[in-house]
């Protein structure tokens, strides 16, 4: 290394600061060494990548071209994994080499700001697990289930190619840029790069989007638990379990996190089994049978209490439990899908591709791309990638493995959710996911409705629905919208073939419900808390007292405001005569994608500021796509004249019916229901306008910033100054031969020092 620039093409300017005495062990490999390793194609390497490409290609042919009567699920797995590997190996490497150009001679915040607590260098494989647990939740499990309405191919293509070209790129870039800025948040980066207007718009948009996301996640839980005594019992038991874990860690054995998580997990299993027994007793079935509205109120009260209680008591232990379940269950599901390899009889493109159907209204474009947000492109990740992870990363080159690789992993979760949803009978799928307004909420109504859809090969009988409900231990599975119950049926169906047989179906169903509810409630707690601090910080600009976060009254007030905001949207969804989830879910996806557009816009301004216009397309391409999708989806939601699609069209139709003195209209059977539709659609429409206007402001300011950089050629930087690193670590999951060799020298030196110390 020494005085050498990073590559022969790089300028030597500023490199002196990172010079390292050649007598010392190197802290980084030369870029030329990395290049040489990559360019060295051994026969084994050629055979490996040739094999991956062939298998991936064959899988896509099976999915997209052959499209037999049934398709085996294993092709989804192969198509996904092979495409991810190729995307990771080649595309993310291209981004690394040309756009981001990490420099391992620079210390990361974990090294130059090290405090042993918030900033602490963490092994890349462990941090990968951390980061994955923070980004993956219920989102990638729910969206693909709803999108299964359109057939298997659209969702599969979008999840796999969307992640390689957009979602993983966003996560990688945000993580890298935040790391270069000492772990600054997306909001701060927006303010630095886009100025006051863009920064403020980004902040308000983020806050509003968080409210919507928390509300709709909570709606998914309400839909999964309403009128399900078993589910209500086992999920509510997570609260005392978390309290117990919190006290155990606080007073009894501090720091024994894995130990208490295992205990918590065992208690959780007991709660699921206990739920089955209790729901079989008369008093239990009556006591734990909760209707949607009281359940929603319960979750709102819970959200408020959880956000003001000390973290150690409820939030932290619940988070441990959720992380433990996440990594375990997702691994288990992957294994089960590979073992069972279910046959999928859903067509590649369904009857509802062009004009929407009972689950998702509207055409494939743009609504497929907002229905599946998490798993393909998720703006919410930008908040995580600019939060904890950049403060823990050891070496700059590791951002590729953690940022890009972590998102590929989440995408794989989405593919598994899609496979699970596709593996169940289509008749059952539509009976479960059509709103009660369409099915009447009864078995007969559902059978009549589904059979009237005229789906090829679908002939639903009442016996199938009652038997399935009995198998999963529920009173009914008709109109259990929201995606979670459908996924749970699919998952239970796959798992029972591996463990337990059909007798275990009910256990696996409620296990799946439990783990989704656990993720969501953790996201609700954490989301409310994060939103509260954002609000306090913003209010503090006008009323300085709010900046003091230990001021009780202020904390309670701001928490109350945030909970009231998402609670109102939740109640609106629960009581919506049109079905709730199908009117609100597009808002969730649009909000999430708009956040992605905001994050990518900030990245674009940063890339321009670095003067890398030649590679600007890497950011501009996904940004343009996200912008087109979200803006056109928002415009359809605002301006469409089709009532099922446009919020204001729906509003107008119901208002006119009311004005004409009608007492029932469409699926609303009373005047009150009609008035509720008028109110809800107005709120939803206004939210759509708010989101799209804010996002457009952010994008315009980002384009202006990019243009300024182009014109002025004045490339300042908001990065922290470069500090030379004093440590070495490999960059990918497996170290390359050169990295291994250098790592071995560092290990030898560490051993020498250790023995030297002990001799003294």
């Amino acid at each position, binding site marked *: 290394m020494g005085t050498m620039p990073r590559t022969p093409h790089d300028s030597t300017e500023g490199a002196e600061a990172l010079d390292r005495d050649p007598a010392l062990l190197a802290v980084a490999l030369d870029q030329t060494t990395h290049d040489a390793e990559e360019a060295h194609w051994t026969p084994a390497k050629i055979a490996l990548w040739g094999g991956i490409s062939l298998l991936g290609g064959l899988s896509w042919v099976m999915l997209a071209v052959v499209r037999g009567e049934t398709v085996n699920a294993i092709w989804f797995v192969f198509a996904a994994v092979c495409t991810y590997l190729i995307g990771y190996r080649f595309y993310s490497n291209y981004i690394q080499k040309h756009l981001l150009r990490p420099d391992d001679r620079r210390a990361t915040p974990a090294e130059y700001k090290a405090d042993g607590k918030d900033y602490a260098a963490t092994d890349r494989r462990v941090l990968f697990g951390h980061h994955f647990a923070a980004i993956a939740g219920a989102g990638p499990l729910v969206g693909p289930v709803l999108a299964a309405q359109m057939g298997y191919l659209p969702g599969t293509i979008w999840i796999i190619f969307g992640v390689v070209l957009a979602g993983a790129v966003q996560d990688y870039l945000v993580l890298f840029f935040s790391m270069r800025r000492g772990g600054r948040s997306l909001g701060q980066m927006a303010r630095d790069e886009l100025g006051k207007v863009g920064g403020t718009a980004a902040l308000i948009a983020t806050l509003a989007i968080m409210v919507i996301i928390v509300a709709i996640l909570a709606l998914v839980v309400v839909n999964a638990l309403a009128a399900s005594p078993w589910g209500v019992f086992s999920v509510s038991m997570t609260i005392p379990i978390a309290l117990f874990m919190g006290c155990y860690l606080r007073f009894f054995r501090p720091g024994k996190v894995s130990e208490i998580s295992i205990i918590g997990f065992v208690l959780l299993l007991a709660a699921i089994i206990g739920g089955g027994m209790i729901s079989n007793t008369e008093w239990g079935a009556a006591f734990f049978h909760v209707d949607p509205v009281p359940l929603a109120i319960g979750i709102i009260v819970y959200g408020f209490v959880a956000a003001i209680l000390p973290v150690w008591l409820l939030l932290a232990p619940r988070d441990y439990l*959720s992380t433990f379940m996440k990594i375990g269950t997702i691994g288990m599901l992957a294994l089960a899908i590979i073992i069972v390899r279910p046959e999928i009889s859903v067509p590649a493109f369904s009857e509802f591709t062009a004009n929407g159907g009972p689950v998702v209204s509207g055409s494939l474009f743009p609504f497929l791309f907002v229905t599946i947000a998490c798993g393909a492109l998720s703006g919410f990740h930008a908040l995580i990638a600019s939060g904890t992870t950049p403060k823990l990363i050891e070496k700059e080159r590791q951002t590729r493995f953690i940022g890009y690789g972590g998102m590929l992993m989440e995408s794989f979760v989405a593919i598994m959710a899609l496979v699970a949803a596709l593996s169940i009978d289509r008749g059952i799928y539509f009976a479960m996911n059509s709103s009660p307004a369409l099915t009447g909420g009864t078995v007969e109504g559902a059978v009549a409705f589904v059979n009237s859809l005229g789906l090829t090969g679908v002939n639903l009988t009442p016996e199938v629905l009652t038997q399935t409900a009995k198998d999963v231990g529920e009173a009914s599975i008709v109109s259990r919208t929201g995606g979670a119950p459908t996924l749970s049926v699919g998952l239970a169906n796959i798992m029972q073939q591996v463990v337990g047989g059909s007798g275990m179906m009910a256990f696996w169903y409620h296990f799946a419900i439990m783990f989704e509810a656990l993720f969501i409630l953790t996201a609700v707690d954490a*989301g409310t808390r994060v939103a509260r601090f954002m609000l306090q910080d913003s209010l503090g600009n006008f009323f300085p007292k709010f900046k003091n976060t230990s001021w009780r009254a202020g904390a309670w007030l701001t928490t109350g405001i945030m909970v009231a905001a998402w609670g109102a949207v939740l109640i609106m969804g629960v009581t919506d005569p049109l079905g709730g989830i199908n009117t609100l879910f597009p808002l969730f996806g649009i909000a999430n994608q708009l956040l992605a557009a905001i994050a990518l816009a900030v990245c674009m301004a940063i890339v321009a500021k670095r003067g890398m216009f030649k590679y600007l397309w890497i950011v501009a391409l996904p940004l343009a796509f996200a912008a087109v999708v979200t803006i056109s989806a928002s415009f359809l939601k605002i301006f469409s004249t089709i009532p099922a699609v446009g919020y204001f069209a729906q509003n107008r139709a119901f208002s006119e019916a009311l004005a004409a003195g009608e007492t029932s209209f469409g699926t609303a059977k009373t005047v009150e229901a009609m008035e509720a539709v008028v109110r809800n659609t107005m709120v939803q429409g206004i939210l759509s306008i708010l989101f799209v206007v804010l996002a457009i402001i952010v994008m315009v300011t980002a384009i202006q910033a990019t243009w300024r950089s182009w014109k002025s050629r004045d490339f300042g930087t908001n990065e922290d100054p470069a500090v030379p690193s004093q440590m070495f670590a490999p960059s990918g999951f497996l170290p390359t031969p050169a990295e291994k060799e250098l790592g071995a020298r560092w290990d030898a030196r560490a051993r020498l020092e250790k023995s030297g110390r002990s001799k003294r």
Partner: protein
Amino acid sequence: MNTVELLKKGARDLAWFVKGVMGDDAYDKYKAHHESRHPSAGADAPPVMTEREFWRDQTDRQDTNPQGRCC
């Protein structure tokens, strides 16, 4: 290495990974950091937190600096 040793190593690696991801090693990391910064336990060195103090401090810091969890 025979099969038993391999299995043992696999179990050890798994335990290391799980503990790392769950955060069991936070105190060890803090202590190692503290010792590397203040190798001589002189009077001027700030006192190192005990394990119990550290974990309290950690959750108290999370109280005012919450981590987001994604959907």
